[in-house]
């Protein structure tokens, strides 16, 4: 319990720091929303009036406290650019981003676990070597580039989807998911490679341990030991890693959404920054930060749940 309380404390502290940081960063950017909205020809009076209307004339600390108080009540404010409530804007864009993240996560789990196990089992073989080289390649190519490549290959040459024509959920689930498959794959691939490497490494490490040798001495088969004991022991690092992955996939989707013209959180964030739309940017950043810390916490807690050794503070895994 004490452990959980401590973790939650860290989580809250992180969120406060992130909110303070993003707030200060935005208020220090040159130019404000009023300049952006009214353009070069605006008279000083109209600018001043708009600043008062948006609350930009209040002192910084007051604005920060008002914003945080609003967030705690669940009121994210009104977008300067669209004059719509930020929660509504975010709600509209949550589905594409979440779908993308979940799909990418599913791809990672589905691809990396079998490949990781197989390469570990046949470590040193030709398959292992091919996967290692391929993994190096996938890890070093940034997803946005893979994205452009996919658009060209699957969109323009093979015509598996129409680039730039993101179908609404209402237009049919298959079309919607079909379009998202390629961006999801683009952000999943580097992570698949990393997960495979991690899993393979953990399994090989574990296989060196004494209990494996003892089990083999007692005449149990390699496969039996691998599936029954070794894999179970690699579960904790794997879960911690996957929790981090879920967190980072949201960040990865910010960029891939630009490449595939997906109206998700990433596009909202980016246009928010160039429009100096502080309520939108602050809300999205805090939301993403919240997602990241919650995923990490969930990973930690899940790991402790699975491995009793972590719960009782022994730490060591011999």
């Amino acid at each position, binding site marked *: 319990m004490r452990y959980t309380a401590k973790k939650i404390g*860290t989580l809250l*502290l*992180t969120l406060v*720091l*992130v909110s303070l*940081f*993003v707030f200060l960063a935005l208020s220090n*950017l*040159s*130019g*404000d929303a009023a*300049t*952006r*909205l*009214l*353009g*070069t*020809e*605006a008279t000083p009076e109209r600018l001043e009036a708009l600043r008062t209307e948006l609350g930009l004339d209040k002192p910084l600390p007051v604005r920060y406290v008002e914003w945080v108080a609003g967030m705690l009540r669940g009121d994210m404010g009104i977008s300067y*650019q*669209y*004059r*719509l409530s930020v929660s509504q*804007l975010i709600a509209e864009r949550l589905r594409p981003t979440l779908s993308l993240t979940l799909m990418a996560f599913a791809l990672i789990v589905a691809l990396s676990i079998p490949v990781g196990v197989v390469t570990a089992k046949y470590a040193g073989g030709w398959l292992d070597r091919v996967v290692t080289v391929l993994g190096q390649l996938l890890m070093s190519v940034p997803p946005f580039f893979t994205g*452009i*490549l996919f*658009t*060209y290959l699957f*969109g*323009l*040459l093979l*015509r598996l*989807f*129409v*680039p*730039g*024509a993101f179908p609404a959920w209402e237009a049919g689930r298959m079309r919607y998911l079909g379009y998202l498959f390629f961006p999801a794959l683009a952000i999943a691939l580097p992570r698949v490679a990393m997960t495979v490497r991690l899993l393979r490494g953990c399994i090989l490490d574990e296989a060196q341990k004494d209990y494996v040798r003892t089990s083999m001495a007692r005449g149990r088969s390699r496969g039996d030991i691998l599936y029954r004991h070794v894999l179970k022991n690699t579960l904790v690092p794997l879960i911690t890693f996957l929790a981090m992955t879920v*967190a980072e996939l949201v*960040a990865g989707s*910010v*960029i891939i959404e*630009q*490449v*595939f*013209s997906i*109206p998700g959180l990433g*596009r*909202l*964030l*980016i*246009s928010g*920054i*160039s*429009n*100096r739309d502080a309520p939108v940017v602050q809300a999205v*950043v805090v939301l*993403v*930060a919240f997602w*990241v*810390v919650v995923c990490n916490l969930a990973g930690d807690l899940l790991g402790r749940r699975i491995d009793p050794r972590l719960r009782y503070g022994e730490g060591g895994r011999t």
Partner: protein
Amino acid sequence: MKRILSLILSILLLASLLAGCGGKQNDAPQGGADTPAGPAADPAPTVDTGRRANNEITVGISQDLDSSLDPHTMVAAGTKELLFNVFEGLVKPTSDGDLAPAVAESWEIGAEMTTYTFKLRSGVKFHNGQDVTSNDVMYSLTRCRDEGYVPALAEADIAEENGNIVITLPAANTEFLASLTCAIIPADYADQATAPVGTGPFKFVSRQAQQNVVLERFEDYWGEKAQLDRVTYLVYENPEALAMALKGGAVDLYAHLGTATVSQLGDDFTILEGSMNLVQAVYLNHTVKPLDDVRVRQALCYALDRQEIFDLTADGKGWALGSSMYPAFRKYFDESLVDLYPHNVDQAKALLAEAGYPDGFALTIKVPSNYSPHVDAGQIAAEQFRAIGVKVTVEPVDWTTWVEDVYKGRNFEATVCGFDASTMTARAMLERFTTGNGKNFIGYSSRAYDEAFEEALRARNDEAQTKAYREMERILAQDAANVYIQDLVDFVALRKGLAGYRFYPIYVMDMSTVHYE
């Protein structure tokens, strides 16, 4: 914790890098479409978009519209460009640069040129089905006057007489008619910002922030009806995504393409070539040393090689300019000014030496990073200035910073950007450089120029006025007020099978004439 913070930091950093794909704001300075470098494409098989059967098209736009679609308060050039199809004034601009009757059927101008009597066209309907009445016209014009939306109406008296609208000006203004392109809207209609209603050939159907805007043909339009049933505008803030959308078949028409994208498009598109209708220049701050010295400014003009800029950025295309006027303003454009300062490095160096800078000086050119044509031109010009010994630094700034610091704060030495005309008048181009004008961000001041402007305002006939405006252009060029570069070439990609696109001398995109063949 550290890890999480650094992750957030890197998201923000990346996002702010990408934020450069912002857009075109306001009618004054503007730039064009981006010119991304992407993989070269083989001619793709012709796309059957399925939209031909429905007589509809999709149009790509690079930036979302203003938050409010009220035609009197809109700011962004992109919003005006689109809503040109939805709204009309008493008069409307034609593709030839003239003004044609719209909601007004005809008008008479009094002998003193101060009274304008407009006869309203009968049978004009708003998109909501109501007839346009003189009451609506009175409402629209007084709103524009009282809220300061149309400066030319500022002290005008607007009245209704026997169903006609009579506008009386305090003093003659030969360019007044051009201001009456301001939209006629229904009196006391409150939802203009979200559900605009006008009298144009297309009516507004719906809008989703950051995604799309849908227009449909207005069946009760008073004039020649639009040919397409439906036009859907799709927002692509990322130039690569837009190029893919064109090639993949999601977009049928895009109006501001760069040469790099054009060369990728292959056989699916007809490429039309027009001009952006803006004056791109290295604008110089006359209030900082040594740019206050005319010899230094002339030296920079001699150092510039426009052809090299055209060759390196647009396959040799572009319209060379010598002053603050572009060729679409046919009668005002003075071609002889283009070659006032032919490329001549020796002469440039001699002028610099004469001004007391034989070893050059340091110069920072700020460029708006979201407009790649301006960034590219700035970089090449910088290289050309270096050839005469000027130590140039090019500093990209994002658009909001540009507006705040450079344009409003006047905190710059030189900047590359483009200015267009908000109305189809020479005044819209030239008035900004008169002494003390609020928009005179370069701090230019010339008595001869101010006097020529007074003369243009006083002129009773078109000939005298044109002469005065051309004189102003000449003074700007002779003073080397700015290092004038070009009116950018503007490529329009139109999917094969579509026709009827028309260029205008102002920044609008007319969809009413576009049709399937």
